[in-house]
């Protein structure tokens, strides 16, 4: 009976989700984009995907081969852009290149106009002011933004849910002290403090994750706490307590599943918020270290190079598209979990 009921609820949720066509389409588009960027190395890279030379296959994307492997002179890694190396390989084999022959760090030296160069046939969206291909930077930038967003969302959900559960379950002084702390902590101007912290430490991916985590977990506390405050006196919890079930088991096995609905509904919006936070720090120049592929940096370049509108417009379109998709998905998820439907 229990499994039937559960699957009926799940079926209804899936049905509700599917009924929101915009959300379903957004999920598909976002999923495909993310999947494509996960394999960015095979789409935009300054190394060939596959090299055939003297009867052997090589995969430069995964392995660094010295130039001597292909009959060159140096022990250093082969530069597949070097005409000399190209000639060596072409003589006794072939190379299979990705569609974009640059990665996010490749500086293109042979531009015909000074960087930033406008879109043309080799650089579909032009190059940025350090002569790096914009398409390549978008692919890698999208990936790191979404991965960062996922990491931040998941870690803050875990911390927030645990904090909310402890507060709501134990109530009393624990709850009171925690609430006062959250009130103070939440009243600190986050953006200002993030700017201060990021200007002092040289942030990398993990530092930034930590900084943003300092505040982002609080978003989850409220709903989980409320659910636990309600559930702690319900019969099934009292029964479990009377049977001598430990607090940990009651919290995680008996009450938490009930509190998860509200949490899951939040996730897509928190993901959008996390991506925005990273992008805004990058835009201010205090985000990921210089050289990293970043959508915020692209936008900042667009603002600094108003004579090169393709930078700003590309950044605007990609970020607006990504965040809109996430919000549309979020709406569909919210519909799916809405018990009134």
């Amino acid at each position, binding site marked *: 009976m229990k499994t039937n009921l559960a699957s009926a609820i799940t079926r209804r949720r899936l049905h509700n989700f599917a009924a929101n066509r915009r959300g379903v389409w957004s999920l598909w588009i976002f999923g495909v984009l993310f999947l494509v960027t996960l394999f960015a190395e095979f789409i935009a890279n300054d190394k060939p995907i596959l090299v055939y030379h003297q009867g052997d296959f090589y995969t430069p994307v995964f392995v660094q081969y010295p130039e001597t492997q292909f009959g060159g002179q140096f022990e250093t890694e082969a530069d597949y852009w070097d005409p000399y190396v190209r000639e060596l390989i072409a003589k006794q084999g072939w190379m299979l290149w990705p569609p974009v022959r640059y990665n996010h760090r490749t500086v293109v030296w042979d531009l015909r106009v000074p960087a930033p160069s406008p879109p043309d046939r080799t650089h579909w969206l032009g190059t940025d002011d350090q002569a790096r291909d914009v398409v390549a930077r978008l692919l890698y930038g999208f990936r790191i933004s979404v991965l960062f967003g996922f990491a931040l969302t998941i870690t803050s959900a875990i911390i927030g849910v645990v904090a909310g559960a402890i507060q709501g379950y134990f109530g009393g002084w624990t709850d009171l002290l925690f609430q006062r702390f959250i009130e103070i902590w939440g009243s600190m101007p986050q953006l200002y403090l993030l700017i201060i912290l990021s200007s002092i430490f040289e942030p990398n991916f993990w530092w930034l994750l930590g900084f943003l985590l300092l505040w982002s977990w609080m978003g989850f506390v409220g709903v989980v706490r409320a659910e636990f405050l309600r559930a702690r006196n319900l019969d099934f919890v009292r029964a479990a307590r009377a049977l001598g079930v430990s607090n940990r088991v009651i919290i995680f096995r008996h009450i938490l599943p009930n509190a998860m609905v509200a949490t899951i509904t939040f996730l897509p919006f928190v993901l959008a918020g996390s991506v925005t936070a990273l992008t805004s720090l990058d835009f201010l120049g205090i985000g990921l270290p210089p050289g990293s592929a970043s959508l915020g940096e692209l936008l900042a370049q667009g603002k600094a190079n108003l004579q090169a*509108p393709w930078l700003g417009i590309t950044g605007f379109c990609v970020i607006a598209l990504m965040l*809109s998709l996430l919000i549309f998905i979020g709406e569909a998820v919210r519909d799916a979990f809405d018990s009134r439907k």
Partner: protein
Amino acid sequence: MATVFNFLFYRLLSAVGVVLGVVCLVFLLIHLVPGDPVEVMLGESAQPAEREALREALGLNRPIGIQLLEYLKGLAHFDLGDSLHAKRPVSEMLAERIPATVILALAALAIAILIAIPLGALAAARKNTLWDRGAMGFSMIGISIPNFVMGPILILVFSVWLQWLPVSGREEGITSLVLPAITLGTALAALLSRMVRSALLEVLGEDFMRTARSKGLGEHRVIFCHALPNAALPIITVLGLQLGTLLGGAVITEFVFSWPGLGQLTIEAIGQRDYPVLQGCVLLISLFYVAVNTLTDLVYAGLDPRIRLGEQ
């Protein structure tokens, strides 16, 4: 009546507590991070004795707890200390910058209201039509585009291509205010238009709406004169809450448009390791937040007795 005063008293007391907590936490955070203001002020070539003297003069060589107490003592007299860099009272520097930030926030608020009310009313009046979907889709996009993404694109279109408005900075007259205010106001407009729509929809189902229609009033009059005032309460609450966010969130917009407000001052102060100024900026923004939150709570309590009685 006594319960109302009790509630007021405790709510204000807790607001003061929160502000004190924020002041202490921010003070510790700023002072515990590495980076030496004396080094920045004197340069690397300074003699150790000089540095010591300056540290002594600024009171930076004392234990951090004492420094915090001194700061709190000053705060009680509305003395925020002197800027390490500009050698002027911090309160004076803040006072110079507040008008710019407040004007920007108020202009953004005005723009948000001007966009949101017609848009939300349109969506509610034509519920489930293309108008509704269009308006709500538009607002969804407005919510999802952060202001630092909006800003550069507005500059590109209106300042560079059309050359109607200045690129950045603050000048005499209203032209330099337009773009920053639109940038800051769009997201709020988007949020607000959804609020207006849902609040109106609730009111439109009431009996007195049918009365208004049945006595022959035009749809415009029904919505703007009868429905909107009754739907105003939740809308005003959201507006109040968002004003705090606007003041705090202006820092990025100020950065994008080189707008000389509190956000800019903060970024300058960070570069110069100017603790007192930094502390003052953060304190002021926190004060805004807490004040607005407390006010909203009080307004709520005034309107809904369950809240003030439930606290007992």
